[in-house]
């Protein structure tokens, strides 16, 4: 079982909100791994839309994604793409 921690800067124009937040949660839910997202002192479940929205991560804020499980490598790759993509899609 592998645990991956990665610090990322949110690059999406809208921050981790709206479509990007929904997309993040949808993608996170495809994986079996446990996914946690941290920002400052908040720590939330990465598979929860309420959690992600509660982080209020705007553009350029720094978050830490922690993924634990068999498919952690693939999960972190896909999630990183969403967080660091500048597009609003």
């Amino acid at each position: 079982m592998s645990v991956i921690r990665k610090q990322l800067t949110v690059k999406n124009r809208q921050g981790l909100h709206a479509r990007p937040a929904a997309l993040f949660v949808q993608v996170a839910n495809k994986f079996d791994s446990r996914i946690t997202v941290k920002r400052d002192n908040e720590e939330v479940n990465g598979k929860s839309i309420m959690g992600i929205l509660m982080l209020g991560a705007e553009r350029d804020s720094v978050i830490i994604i922690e993924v634990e499980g068999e498919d952690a490598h693939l999960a972190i790759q896909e999630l990183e793409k969403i967080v660091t993509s500048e597009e609003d899609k």
Partner: protein
Amino acid sequence: MNQIKGIAAATGISVGIAYKVGKEEFIVPRQEIGDQDIPIQIQLFEEALIKTRREIIELQKRISAEMGQEEAQIFDAHLLVLEDRMLIEEVISRLKKDKLNVAFIFQEVLKKYVSVFSNIEDEYLKERIADINDVGKRILRNLLGKERKGLGDLKERVIVVAHDLSPSDTAAMHKKNVAGFITDIGGKTSHTAIMAKSLEIPAVVGAEDATVKINQGDMLIVDGTLGIVIVNPDEETLESYRSEELKLRGVTEKFLSAKDLPAITLDGNQIEINANIEFPDEVPAVKLHGGEGIGLYRTEFFYMNRKDLPTEEDHYQAYKYVAEEMNPYPVIIRTLDLGGDKFLSQFEVPHEMHPFLGWRAIRFCLARPDIFKLQLRAILRASVHGNLKLMYPMISGVEELRQANKILEEAKGELKAKDMPFDEDVQVGAMIEVPSAAMTADILAKEVDFFSIGSNDLIQYALAVDRANEKVAYLYEPTHPAVLRLIKHIIDAAHNADINVGMCGEMAGEPGLALILLGLGLDEFSMPPQVIPELKYLIRSITLKEAQEIAHEALEFSTGSEVEEFAQAKLRGILK
């Protein structure tokens, strides 16, 4: 007479009687429970979630048929909240800890989230609170076994006045009995405002204390164009608005009267009016609006939101359904247009500096003949069930076209070898959306059965403008003389080769521009279903000769804005 200023959410004018809708309040009892009740309470909760989910999915289906896919997607956010793990886990863990009835606990947890979100300064989150409250109320209602008194069964035609309306409330409204609505809160981009626009119900939102100033039964004028509400207007004001309302409504009715009639110009030229769709379940909406066929069936959705690749059978079933439903009318399937701005999770696509100039659409398909041929086989197999045609996106030169056709021939060969039936003469078209294809349209025309102009991309490539980039978006001009000349060139080349040419971009559904396109000789127009009645009406109100004169004159201008102004003036003249 009293005037209230708000935000214009959906254009139009309505005069009517105020019908105030109170907030839906629940009295949720607080009951202590024993350890033995916990599993029962959890089961109650699960049943309420399942029931709510079913309700939302049904609502989505109805909205998708009546309004469109985009409006239905508003409820995707509701489903995400409904399935939220954090929320569900918190309810269950507190249920076990506090030993109280699940309805009470759920309400407490919901309140907590709403208060956290309310404290974050963010426009987007404020709108999401409405979603959370909406879905939360549905769950509570189902937990308590209550029914919502819907806005769907009002007895008379009224103007609804409410502090706030949830998307669910709005979706239940019918133009038949809701003439307009006013809410105290909400913004231009709130889901309620978006849905009001689709429903074509004049609406003013963010009218602050409207519910305080307006009494049940007051006479109201809702001006959704200016964003004002007039309470108990005097006779003079009322008269002037009434005649304005009748005029507006008359125009809409005029359009609707044309929806089931063929689009024939006054001098007897029949034009094909088709619809653009993405999902098979949009077919009822196409028929409802008088669409004669499908001019663009996008097929990328098979690849969205899934990890594995769709099978030939997945493709086949969807195409067969649409072909059968639309038969004998044509359905033009656009082969995969992945890449560019379309997310694709199944393939490792290298990061590109210029995705719109990169590995996408037909380029991707030619590089992955396995995926491409699978789709072509499915289209061919479905072709026996109706009038199917196919077209390749983003052709930039005749070699790409030949390569694609070669793969199509291979697909036919494979089906023949397996004795599977298909239509030998299935028509094949090229989308013309790259300037190089437009300039060589005469060469391409010899090797296809039809053209379809993809105006969105054609404009973007011809003018070197990324429309999503706010700084340059003003340069995106469908009326730019370069665009009009390209389109004329494409249409002339097609007609010289004796093939039909259509358009499936946004331009085709813009009434003013459609006049010019008609005059340039476009044979087929494909657009979102909602625009069809107006386009049909327009075509039935003009001769081809007049349209040709308009097009001829439009080509004389030197700037896009002059053309735009000219087209709008002509349009007003015709619709007068």
